[in-house]
């Protein structure tokens, strides 16, 4: 009876491990994001992120950097007579603050990604657009244009590189520069393997964007002690103005 129980236990353990082990052969392993905390200091002008991992030789990998989902209100302009003015307000829900897709080299990777429900065009399925007179397709394209202009949405073909294979696996490296307008928050770096033109296993890694030092201090003061912050801003401005006045007086006659 004890032996039977042991056999059952071993079988169950084997069944439990087998699917995971099968998935791991296709999954990127040892996924690293460097740095995984992006510090926004006084001289921050954007930051470079490097994503590395391993995948089977027979597969490819695409990397998504996805910002926190936000709900935002937008003004939509329209022509009335000779003038362009705000015609209606549009609510967009669950739109990521940032979305960057890093693709391997190749002529048709953007189309392949779209076909696999990856990439900017597929965000339309997750973004909720409030009812407007304009079609949701048009609103979505205007939204993408706005985000492109801010460099917050992008697709970068040729951004994933592979190194020589070893033991049936190869190492990939993807590099991307996040713009200076990247908002503070928790981001997700997601890798998806592509095997025979189909989506394979996925792995995710957190990326934190946070303010530090003087920037963090100013930001916190502006949020938590608003009146003090406003008065301090005025006093410093008055002091600077008076100081310059005195400096000029000392510098010569008028």
């Amino acid at each position, binding site marked *: 009876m004890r032996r039977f129980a042991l056999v059952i236990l071993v079988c169950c353990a084997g069944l439990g491990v087998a699917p995971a082990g099968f998935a791991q052969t296709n999954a990127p392993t040892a996924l690293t994001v460097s740095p995984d905390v992006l510090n926004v200091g006084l001289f921050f002008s954007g930051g470079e992120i490097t994503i590395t991992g391993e995948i089977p030789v027979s597969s490819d990998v695409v990397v998504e950097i996805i910002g926190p989902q936000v709900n935002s209100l937008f003004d939509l302009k329209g022509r009335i007579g000779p003038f362009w003015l705000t015609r209606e307000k549009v609510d967009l829900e669950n739109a990521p603050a940032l979305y960057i897709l890093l693709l391997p080299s190749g002529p048709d990777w953007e189309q392949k990604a779209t076909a696999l429900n990856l990439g900017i065009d597929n965000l339309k399925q997750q973004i909720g657009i409030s009812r407007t007179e304009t079609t949701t397709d048009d609103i979505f394209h205007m939204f993408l244009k706005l985000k492109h202009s801010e460099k917050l949405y992008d697709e970068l073909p040729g951004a994933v590189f592979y190194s020589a294979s070893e033991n049936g696996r190869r190492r990939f490296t993807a590099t991307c520069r996040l713009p200076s307008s990247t908002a503070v928050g928790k981001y997700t770096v997601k890798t998806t393997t592509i095997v025979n033109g189909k989506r394979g296993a996925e792995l995710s890694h957190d990326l934190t964007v946070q303010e530090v030092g003087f920037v963090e201090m100013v930001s916190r003061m502006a949020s938590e002690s608003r009146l003090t912050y*406003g*008065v301090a801003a005025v006093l410093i401005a008055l002091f600077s103005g008076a100081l310059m006045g005195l400096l000029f007086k000392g510098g010569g006659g008028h």
Partner: protein
Amino acid sequence: MPWTIYLPIAQHSVALPIMVGLGFVVGLLSGLFGVGGGFLMTPLLIMIGIPPTVAAASDSNQIVAASASGMYAHYRLGNVDFKMGVYLLIGGILGGTGGVQIIKILKAMGNADFLIKITYVVMLGFVGVYMFQESLQALRSTETPKAIPAEGKGKDSMYVRLMRALPWQTRFEKSGIVLSPLVPLFLGGLMGMLAAIMGVGGGFIMVPVMVYLLRMPMHVVVGTSLFQVLFTCIDVTIMQAYSNRTVDFILALLLLIGSTFGAQVGARLSTRLKEDQLKIFLASLVLLVMVKMLLSLVLTPNILLSYHGGH
């Protein structure tokens, strides 16, 4: 990167030389014409990529420094009529408070932005064309060796007679005029209201009003206008920081490094330039901004969608 700096409230990186340069240009205008420069600086900051609300609020903060510096320079030159300034300021604060309420009503009605811009276009167009024409005529008349007519004479219009008929006539020593305090109180209120609606210090409106409606001499106008702009912007900065968290301290600091320096240069230049030259420069500037405003209403925007909450 030593030449870029991150703005914590705007959440945007900017190039240091560009920001200081912008501040200098605006400070120069402040010292030269007695305007705060908000009507020019805010659109420029937005063009650089600063969110409109942050651009407008931080601009008010830097105008405090530029106006303080410019006013101090004019005070030393004896160009500030404090009595007139206080009347205008009282009117301005009352009018500004009313203006904020008008904005609320307009927003509830929808399309406040359009009404604000069209008000800009009409106001700037009217003031700019009038100033330009008159300055040009004055320049031509001084070039020809004719007998120089006394300024303002020959135009003893109904307006002048009405001014004389108002009660509590008082003498404004520095400006050399006799006027009822009701006039600067009313005009200050009107300007404060327009300034609140347009979201700027209001110096560019106040200067022509002082010159043409209050008949004050140009050099006193500049110093007195700076006095009024200074206190209006102190009020706006504190209110914006408290209510909207839109004052970017670092952005304002960068701008004011350039602007305080520019204001001093402007104040000195203003004493060397002829009065009509000053007026014609200001008129050109006002017309330029008016045309830009008009084009922004008429030309197709690049992107029809924009974040809600712009100034």
